[in-house]
């Protein structure tokens, strides 16, 4: 049993960072502003765009968000994971269109590599270069060992799928297989031989692409053959940050729906009077609180156990956080649209921004069923 702080590690710095993020979003990134920005064209068959506000990105870089979880040795601030969790929660609450989460994920992977090349990439992140992971194959496998990209003396060939915020990222962290096993490589997004094909996705606050590599020169960032283990060590942090994003978005959906049902009058009463509205919204709240507490505890477990002495607990809490948050995200989104009635079904109502982000979040890096199946093997033992 590893010692953990009662407050999950939310000290003054982390709390201050969270509050400043909340203020930042309410100042610069309100739902109406985002809606005008990313939802100005509702045509399903519009060209696949990648819309985001680079000036906001510059500002959050200046605020040190990208540097927050970069180790000091690599030019970062070296804050604990809970700092990223706090930022992700606020980003989710604002449905923030940016490569922040993807850059965090790249950070978590690079932190595990412990090489000069990895530290160089981390330094870039600290100074504001958006990066993302290209580690998923066409069959949507989240296993670190699965990649469709091959590496042959330093050159990458093959295709990586479901790359998040791909067209916002300037650097890619690619997993590729060689005789030595799965390695991790840094590639500039604009390097020769990199062909990015944008995906037509539903989530308006992200972009996604599949990326084919043909003989692309790459810098190996993990020790040879150590890429798979580095990915495995980073996955819990990735899952937890996604859970935090869902918690923030879920809270927005809950509060917005409560406000609407408190004011919308039907049958001479506010909708919120009716238990058919009220009780499901209470259930949404219960789900959010579970997901939140699990996300914080998982992040705290990671922060408290750098040597992975009690890795099983970390894995367990991270799977639980992602599983719970994913189910919550689906439920909270569905109830928000339902209880907003006709207006919630329209494009002009902001609910759909969060609905679509949540449906994207819930599957990313594994949906609830996936994580529960892994938990079953851990906690019950493999079925014979």
């Amino acid at each position, binding site marked *: 049993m590893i010692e953990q702080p009662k407050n999950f590690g939310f000290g003054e710095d982390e709390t201050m960072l969270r509050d400043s993020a909340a203020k930042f979003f309410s100042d610069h990134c309100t739902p109406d502003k985002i809606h005008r920005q990313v939802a100005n064209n509702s045509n399903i068959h519009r060209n696949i765009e990648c819309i985001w506000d680079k000036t906001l990105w510059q500002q959050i870089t200046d605020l040190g968000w990208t540097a927050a979880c970069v180790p000091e040795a690599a030019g970062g601030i070296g804050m604990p994971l809970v700092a990223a969790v706090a930022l992700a929660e606020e980003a989710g609450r604002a449905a923030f269109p940016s490569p922040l989460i993807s850059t965090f994920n790249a950070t978590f992977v690079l932190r595990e590599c412990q090489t000069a090349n990895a530290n160089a990439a981390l330094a870039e992140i600290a100074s504001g270069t958006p990066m993302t992971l290209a580690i998923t194959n066409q*069959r949507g496998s989240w296993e670190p060992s699965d990649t469709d990209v091959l590496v042959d003396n330093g050159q990458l060939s093959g295709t990586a799928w479901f790359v998040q915020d791909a067209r916002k990222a300037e650097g890619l962290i690619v997993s590729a297989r060689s005789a030595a096993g799965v390695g991790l490589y840094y590639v500039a997004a604009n390097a020769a031989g990199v062909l990015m094909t944008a995906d037509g996705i539903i989530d308006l606050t992200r972009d996604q692409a599949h990326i084919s590599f043909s003989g692309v020169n790459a810098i190996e960032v993990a020790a040879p053959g150590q890429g798979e283990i580095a990915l495995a060590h980073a996955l819990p942090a990735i899952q937890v940050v996604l859970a935090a994003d869902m918690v923030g978005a879920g809270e927005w959906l809950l509060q917005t729906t409560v406000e609407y049902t408190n004011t919308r009058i039907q049958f001479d009463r506010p909708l919120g009077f009716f238990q*058919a509205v009220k009780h499901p919204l209470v259930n949404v709240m219960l789900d959010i609180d579970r997901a939140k507490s699990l996300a914080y505890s998982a992040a705290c477990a990671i922060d408290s156990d750098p040597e992975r002495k009690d890795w099983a607990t970390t894995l367990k809490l991270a799977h639980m956080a992602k599983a719970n948050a994913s189910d919550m995200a689906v439920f909270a989104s569905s109830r928000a649209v*339902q209880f907003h*009635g006709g207006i*919630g079904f329209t494009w002009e109502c902001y609910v759909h921004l969060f609905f679509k982000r949540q449906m994207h979040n819930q599957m990313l890096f594994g*949906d609830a069923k996936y994580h529960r199946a892994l938990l079953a093997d851990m906690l019950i033992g493999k079925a014979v």
Partner: protein
Amino acid sequence: MADADRKDTPEQAEFRTYCQDWLAHNHPGKPPVRIPLGALELSDPKALTWLQAWQKSAFDAGLVGCDYPVEFGGGGRKNCQTIANQEMQRAKTPFFPNIIGLGMAAPTVLFHAQDSVKSDLLPRLFSGEDIWCQGFSEPGAGSDLANQQTFAERRGDSWVINGHKVWTSLAHFASWMILLCRTDKSDKYNGLSYFVVPIQTAIGKGVTVRPLIKMTGETGFNEVIFEDLVVEDRYRLDAVGAGWKVAMTTLSHERGAGELVTPAAGGMTQEDTKGANTGSPSALIELAKNSYRNGKTAADDPLIRDEIVKMMIRQEAFRQNQRRALVPQLIDHPMRIPLQNKLIGTEFNQDLAEIAYAIEGPASSLYLNDDNAPGGGEWQLAYMNSFGVTIAAGANEVQRNILAERVLGMPKSK
């Protein structure tokens, strides 16, 4: 329904054979353009025109309005619409575009309009030449339908209508609207009256139609604003103040609980419609066998399998419910099953489409504008659209109240 179509009456049997023969030679074939899942999703005029031609040919052949009186364009038959519907399903035909006309306007007009209006309007309604829309919902009158603010003021032999309707599907294509509105502000329920009003011919003359965009990005429903629209009194259905009673005729038929069976075609498969086939668990199995979750075939995942089977049970139970609803000695309350249909059907479609996300894994992020989207992204479209129906026509929360109060005899919640 496959079972229910046995043991026909002689008239039914003869008519069934006729339908089979006609359909064998007059199936419209494959559409030239993508056909959406249902008429309410129609936004492409080309699709509409093609579907109108199909409805007209079916009408001319006597497969539409079979049970309506001959003098109003019907077939004058008895319990034969259900036969035509079954055979059109079996022949995998396209659906009829004039769904609101056939399902809501026709029975309401038949039971409440004067004969001259019936013979004027019903034939072109059945043929699909006139598309109809429904003017019930208002910004302040959703589930609380009786809270109508649109007002019709008597001026001699006609009425002047002012107000604002929302969520009116098909209004952008509609020639006519069934309109519920207020003629007396002093009485919530008895202050309502019911009209049929022209839309297309009145645009710019008191009617404005504005498209609303759905969360899916599709158009398909609209705001309709009335500014001093003048309507002849003959277009009023039933007495002044009887609007609520007339609306109940509309709604009971919408809920499948009305006296008349709605003419309904359909059954055309995904390939044929170039569109979605997201309405059935078998389509979900198809999807699961060709989709990957975390690198493995989704159809092999025990949790996915269980979800799909649950939906197949609900589907079969729905079919057998319809069959049982027709057997008096097997139902204790005549409305018990019919009043369930809207609730069960819409939640079935919602739950079905949600499962597709789990089946498709990360590919569930892809939409209609991505060539790699499993099932063309239609499952995600269907999931989002499913909320349109769990909300519309009396949100399902209201449906549960109705069942509790009318069937179980529980106290009113309002």
